């Protein structure tokens, strides 16, 4: 048979059985669609997590209280109280390679100004924080070292916080805000950065670390120390120096027993991306199962078709069709079903992922790779699952096939 005739016959056969063809295609659409959608979610989530981490700052080393364990996962990290402001000061003065050092105490409080109040993240830190987070000023200035030393109750607001407490576009410098019943004078507002990073950097209040300890948390503890290295190469060295210094300060001889954790940005990215990869593989395997079910649907439909059309096959053979003609006819039927289903499924999956990113604020990204993958998979499914029924049809003897009731 000529190829164009073969396609015409195939379309005719599929069209004569609209309902069944439609249902089979639907199975493939769902299979392929869910593969495309889940891959796009996985891809989008891991991209956005990585860019979020990158936007926190570059070449960062993080010291957090609590025992060292592999990667990010530590038990009761927040509850450990082993890092102090003195540790941070020691790092600042003794690790000369470090470019910036910023201790942090972070907790959310109710902030009140005039009639407005808002629950907001309050970060007690030092002036280096602005450098590490690349914060620029919209109004006024950032906290200064002298304010830290003097324990001045001053506050720098994020632009969203400023809008919420003082109204849109109002310069609040010089006004006061009450946090946990302590009155703070606003000295500056940071420039909008957009909501990136784990902390919404537009909705926060920065105060001197000493003020946070004195008026809010009490004690000498800090919840983390962030250190910026001058470049990528110096990270391991600084990490080592910080570890040695803190071990010595905490009187711990065996590094295994360290009561703090030193990690760097690259480690975090590696851990997070391994988590998102696992997550994506997990989602994709669920989707893959539905694809497999779709493939079995194809095989089932083709087997039914072959059985139902046994007499037709017998007739075609009786009037001169060779085995190859019959194999090709049924193989192309199966392949066409999956390819139509595959194309519609890709559109369906892309639509789902577009809807998700629009309405569920999940970032998604349909990659050419996932489209190519699912298209290839759908064509392969058509051929693999179509082959057995096609072969079965072609092997029928014409007489037995014609005799079939």
């Amino acid at each position, binding site marked *: 048979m000529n190829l164009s005739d073969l396609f015409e016959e195939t379309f005719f056969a599929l069209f004569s059985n609209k309902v069944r063809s439609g249902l089979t295609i639907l199975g493939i659409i769902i299979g392929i669609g869910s593969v495309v959608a889940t891959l796009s979610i996985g891809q989008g989530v891991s991209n956005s997590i990585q860019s979020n981490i990158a936007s926190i700052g570059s070449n960062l080393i993080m010291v957090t209280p609590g025992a060292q364990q592999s990667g990010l996962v530590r038990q009761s990290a927040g509850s450990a109280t082993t890092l102090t402001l003195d540790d941070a000061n020691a790092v600042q003065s003794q690790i000369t390679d470090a470019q910036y050092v910023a201790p942090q105490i972070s907790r959310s409080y109710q902030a009140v100004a005039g009639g407005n109040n808002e629950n907001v993240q309050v970060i007690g830190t030092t002036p280096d924080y602005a450098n590490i987070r690349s914060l620029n000023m919209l109004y006024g200035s950032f906290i200064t070292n002298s304010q830290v030393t003097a324990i001045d109750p001053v506050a720098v607001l994020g632009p969203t916080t400023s809008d919420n407490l003082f109204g849109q576009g109002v310069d609040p410098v010089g006004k006061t805000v009450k946090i946990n019943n302590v009155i703070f004078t606003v000295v500056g507002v940071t420039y909008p950065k957009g909501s990136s990073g784990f902390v919404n950097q537009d909705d926060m209040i920065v105060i001197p670390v000493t003020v946070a300890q004195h008026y809010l948390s009490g004690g000498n503890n800090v919840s983390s120390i962030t250190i910026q290295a001058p470049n990528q190469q110096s990270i391991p060295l600084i990490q080592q120096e910080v570890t040695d210094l803190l071990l010595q300060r905490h009187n711990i001889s065996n590094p295994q027993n360290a009561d703090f954790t030193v990690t760097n940005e690259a480690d975090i990215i590696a851990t997070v991306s391994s988590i998102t990869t696992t997550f994506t593989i997990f989602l994709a395997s669920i989707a893959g199962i539905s694809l497999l079910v779709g493939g079995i649907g194809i095989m089932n439909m083709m087997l039914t078709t072959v059985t139902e059309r046994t007499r037709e096959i017998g007739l075609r053979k009786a*009037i*001169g069709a*060779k085995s190859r003609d019959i194999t090709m006819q049924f193989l192309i039927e199966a392949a066409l079903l999956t390819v139509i289903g595959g194309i519609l499924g890709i559109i369906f999956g892309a639509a789902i992922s577009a809807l998700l990113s629009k309405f569920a604020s999940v970032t998604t990204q349909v990659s050419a790779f996932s489209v190519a993958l699912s298209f290839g998979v759908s064509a392969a499914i058509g051929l693999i699952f179509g082959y057995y029924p096609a072969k079965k049809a072609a092997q029928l003897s014409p*007489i037995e096939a*014609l005799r079939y009731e």
Partner: protein
Amino acid sequence: MIEIRNITKTYLNDDVETQVLKGVSFSVKDGEFVAIMGPSGSGKSTLMHILGALDTPTSGQYFLDGKDVSDLSDDELADIRRSKIGFVFQSFNLLPRATVMRNVEMPLLYSRVPKEEREEKAKAALISAGLSNDRFYHLSNQLSGGQMQRVAIARSLVNDPALILADEPTGNLDTKTGDIVLATFQKLNESGKTVVLITHEQYVAEHAERIIHIRDGVILEDKKNENRLVKKLQ
């Protein structure tokens, strides 16, 4: 045209051997019109399938146009069916959801005939099978039995085979329609085609030039039909 020598056919089902043909020999010359007659179960259809290259004999030889076809592969047999033989089945065997034209064109698909030529040939075959041309684009399951049989005959003609085999072509038709079908075969035979027709009715067999009687897989009688009935198409 056809020469068979000592053909046997044995079916093996669940260790039970059934010998259906027990050594059948005859020959059919080019342009002959032969009827094969016999009671039900005598092996007529089995013989016809072997003559039509749809099946191979268990033993014996079959020469078609001087070529031994008793031992060919499936695909070689398919080629012979396509190029030399037109088969008319007792139960028509049309594709139900396809139009008359599509049914008749089908053998030409496997001969790789281009579309326009296919349509011309199919129309010519339908005209010589006597189907009126307002039925050409009807679905085949919307036709009467007589019309279906004409479509089946047209399909057997479309590849212009030298040999036409018909298994009980009038079996499902009333006498009047049956007569028209028989007249069509006679006309085709006059135009030079070899026709072999199977029937269990004396009346139908009497339209042939020669009648072969078979019973229980052997030939009882093979003789010229002295008082041949001739039908004319009006």
